[in-house]
C-alpha cells in the first residue's frame, strides 16, 4: 500500500502551467527519486506535497489521508531544502529540537532525541554550536536531523546535495542511502543529477516541462527509456532512426575490437568505465562504454559490433 500518493496534481502560475496532471506513488520504506532538469516543476510538486503550494487540481494522500486544505504545519511531512535553511537564531540542538517542541514533547524526551539524531548524522558534539560556524556539509547534516526529529510520515528532500561539491557530496550520498534503508523511511528525493537519482532511488520518476514522462526502477529506465528526450537526459547519445522509428543503442551494448570499419574519435575515463566515441566509415557516431583494462587510443582503427539486446525502440 503506498504511503504517499499524488493524484493528477496540476499547478499553474498566472495561467502558465508549472505542473500538469502529475501522479506518483511511493510505497512505505521506498525512496522515489524525482529527476528532471531545472525548472521542470519537480520542486513545485514537492511544495504541493508539503502544503506550501496549493494545487489547481488533484490531491495528495498520505497514509490514506487526504491532505487537501491541510496547512503545512499539520501535515507531518519532513522537508530538507537545497541550502539547509537552518534557523540562524538557534544553535544546532535548538534547530533539531524545533519540531519536537512544536509537538509539545516533554523536555527529557526532546533532549534524548536530539542527542540520538546528532549521533545518527555524525555530529554528536555539535549541539551547542552556532549554525553559522558549521561547514556546508555539517549544516546539511543538521538540516537532515531537524527534518527527521519529529519522525515524519514521509521525508521530502529538495536537491539536498546541490550546494556541496566533490568528495563531500559522495560521502553524504552514501550516508543518506544507508540512513534511508536503516530507518525504513518513505522518501521523495528531488534532483537533477542522474547519478544521484539512480544511486538513491528504488524507483525514479523523470519529469519534463511539468509532466512526469516515465517512472520505474533505474534498470527499467535504462533498459527502456520512454522517448528520445528521456534517453538523452539519462546520458545516452546513440539515438538513431531505424525503419522510420527512433531507437537508442545502449553504449554498453557496443563492443569494439582491433580491426577496421571505424575509428576512435575520443577517449574519456570515468572511474572504472572508459567511454569511447567512435565514428564508422559511413559516418555513424556511437558512444561506447567499456570496462577493459586496456583501451584503444584516439585515432586507432577498430571494428565494432552491437549486441541486439541493447537496441531499444523509443516512442515518437
Amino acid at each position, binding site marked *: 500500500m503506498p504511503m504517499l500518493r499524488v493524484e493528477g496534481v496540476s499547478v499553474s502560475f498566472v495561467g502558465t502551467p508549472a505542473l500538469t496532471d502529475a501522479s506518483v506513488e511511493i510505497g512505505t520504506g521506498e525512496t522515489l527519486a524525482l529527476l528532471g532538469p531545472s525548472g521542470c516543476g519537480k520542486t513545485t510538486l514537492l511544495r504541493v506535497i*508539503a*502544503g*506550501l503550494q*496549493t494545487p489547481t487540481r488533484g490531491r495528495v494522500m498520505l497514509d490514506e489521508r487526504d491532505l487537501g486544505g491541510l*496547512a*503545512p*504545519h*499539520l*501535515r*507531518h*511531512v*519532513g*522537508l530538507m*531544502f537545497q541550502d539547509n*535553511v*537552518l*534557523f*540562524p*537564531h538557534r544553535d544546532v540542538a535548538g534547530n533539531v529540537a*524545533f*519540531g519536537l517542541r*512544536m*509537538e509539545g514533547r516533554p523536555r527529557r524526551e526532546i533532549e534524548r532525541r536530539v542527542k540520538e539524531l546528532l549521533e545518527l548524522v555524525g555530529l554528536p558534539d555539535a549541539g551547542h554550536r552556532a549554525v553559522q560556524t558549521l561547514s556546508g556539509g555539517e549544516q546539511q547534516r543538521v538540516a537532515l536531523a*531537524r*527534518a527527521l526529529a*519529529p519522525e515524519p510520515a514521509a521525508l521530502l528532500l529538495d536537491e539536498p546535495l546541490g550546494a556541496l561539491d566533490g568528495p563531500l557530496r559522495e560521502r553524504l550520498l552514501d550516508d543518506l542511502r544507508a540512513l534511508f534503508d536503516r530507518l525504513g523511511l518513505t522518501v521523495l528525493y528531488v534532483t537533477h543529477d542522474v547519478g544521484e537519482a539512480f544511486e538513491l532511488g528504488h524507483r525514479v520518476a523523470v519529469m519534463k516541462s511539468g509532466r512526469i514522462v516515465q517512472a520505474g526502477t533505474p534498470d527499467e529506465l535504462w533498459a527502456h527509456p520512454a522517448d528520445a528526450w528521456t534517453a538523452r537526459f539519462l546520458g545516452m547519445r546513440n539515438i538513431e532512426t531505424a525503419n522510420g522509428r527512433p531507437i537508442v543503442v545502449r553504449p554498453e551494448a557496443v563492443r569494439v575490437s582491433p580491426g577496421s570499419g571505424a575509428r576512435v574519435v575520443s577517449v574519456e575515463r570515468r572511474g572504472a568505465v572508459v567511454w569511447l566515441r567512435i565514428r564508422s566509415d559511413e559516418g555513424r557516431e556511437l558512444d561506447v562504454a567499456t570496462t577493459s583494462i586496456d583501451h584503444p587510443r584516439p585515432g586507432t582503427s577498430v571494428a565494432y559490433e552491437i549486441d541486439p539486446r541493447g537496441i531499444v525502440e523509443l516512442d515518437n
Partner: protein
Amino acid sequence: MRRPAAARIAAVGVPAAFLALFFLYPLGAILERGLTQAGGLRFPGDVLFSHDTVEIAWFTVWQATVSTVLTVLAGMPLAWATARLRFRGGRLVRALVVVPFVLPTVVVATAFLALLPSRFDRGVVPILLAHVFFNVAVVVRVVGGYWARLDPRLWDAAAILGASPLRRFRELTLPALRPALAAAAALTFLFCFTSFGVVVILGGPTRLTLEAAIYDAATAAFDLRTAAALAILQLVAVAAIVAVSSRLEARAGLVAPLAAEETSSRRPSRRERLGLGAALGGSALLIGAPLVALVRSSLDTPNGAGLAFYRALGHDTPSLLVAPWHAVLNSLGYAAVATAIALVTGGLAAAVIAHRPAGWLDVAVMLPLGASAVMLGYGFVIGFDTAPLDLRGSLWIVPVAQSLVCAPFVVRLLAPALRAVDPRLREAAATLGASSSRIRREIDLPLALRPLGIAAGLAFAIALGEFGATVFLARSDHPTLPVAIFRFLSRPGAENQGTAAALCVVLMAVTATAVLTAERLAARRGAL
C-alpha cells in the same frame, strides 16, 4: 591606494574645521554658560534636581517610550506587507510611507490641530499621534527592509516542522527581527526624545519636553543658565541614546540568511489579502487623515470654502514683519545654501569615512544628529554674540545651522553607497591607467550620483522644515516658512490659524516637490 596628501588633508580638514567652528564651539559656549557662575565653576545642581526639571525629564522619557511602542505596533503590519507580499502599487506604498518622515514638524503639528476636535487638540494624545505619524516610516523601512532580506523558506521550514502561524510569529518572526526592531525602536525613541516642533505646538503650556523647556527658558524666561543646564542634560541623555542606537543598528546590519530579492516576496493568499487590506487601509488613514484635515482647514474660510487664506499670503499682516510669501522665498534660499554646505562637508566626510569606517570623523559628523536642533540654535545664539564671531543678524547663520542638521543624513546615505562600490572596479580602472584622482572622478563620482541626488533632496527637505535651530536664528524680517507658521499659530483667531494652514500646505508642496524631483533626477542619472 593613497591619495595625494593635499587632497587627503582637504577631505578631512574641511568637514573637521566646519564642525569645530560651528558645532564644537557653540557647544563649548553652552557648557561654559551652564557650568560656571560669577566666573567660577559651579555644577548646576539646583537646576538639574529641581522639581520642575525632574518632572520635565520624566515626561520626556515617558512620551518617547509610549510613542515608540505605539509606532512599532502601528508600523509592523505595513512592514510585513511591504517586505513579504508582492502586490500592485507595492513600490508606490514603499515610497509614500516615507513622506511623513520628511514633512516639516510644524506642518504635521498643524495638521493634527486641524484634525482633532478642539477638546483634544492640545495635550498628550496629539503628541503621541504625531510621533507615530512621523516615525512609522522608520519602522516600515528599517524592519521591513530587514524582513525582506530574510529567507522566506525559514517560515516554510518552521511550518513543516509543525509550527502554527502564531508559533511561527513567536518563535521565528520576533526573534529573527529582533535586531531590526531594536534598531528601529532606538531611532524612533531618539526622534521622539528630541521632538520639538510637535511638542511646542501640540503640548500646550504644561506639557514640556527637555527640548521645549530649553526653548522656553531661553526665549520666554530669559533664564540663560537654566537653558544651558537643561541643554547639558539633554546632551548627555542624547549621547547615551545615540550610543545605544548606533550599536543596535550595527547589529541589525548583521547578515541574516539572505534570499534573492525576487524570491522573498510573493503573491498574497486569500487570508493574507485581508491582512494586506487592513494594513494599507490603516496606514492610509493614519497618514492621510491629518493631511486631508490640514488642506481642508486651509480652504475653510469664514465665508465658506475658498482660497482667501492663500490670497492673504501676498498681503502684509500684523502677525509678521513681512508679507507671508516672503517666507517661501526665504525658506527656498536658506535651504539651497544649507544643502550646498551639507553636500560639500558631508560628501567629503563620507568619502573619508567610506574607506575608514568607525574612525573619529565618523563619530564627529554624526554628533549634530544627536545634539538636538534646539541646543544647536541656542548654542549659536550664545556662542556667536561677541566679536570677532558676532554673527547675530547675519543671514548666513541660518543655513549654516541647518546644514549641520542635514549633514549627518548626507553622510549616512553617501558613505554606504561609496563603500558598496566594488573595489575591483577601481583596480580595473587603475590597471587601465587611471590615476587615483582620475578614479575618483571616473568611478566613484558617477556611481555616487544617484545617492548624491537623493541626499540632496533629503537635505533640502530637512532644511526647509528645520524648526528647532531656525526659530532661534531667523531674523524677524527674514522668517522661514516653519517660523512664520509658528508665529501665526501662536496668535489667536481663525484668520491666523487659516493662514498657518495655507502656509503649511505650501510648505508641504514645496517639500514633496523637492524630494520627488531629486529622486527623479537621481533615478535618471544613476541609470548607468
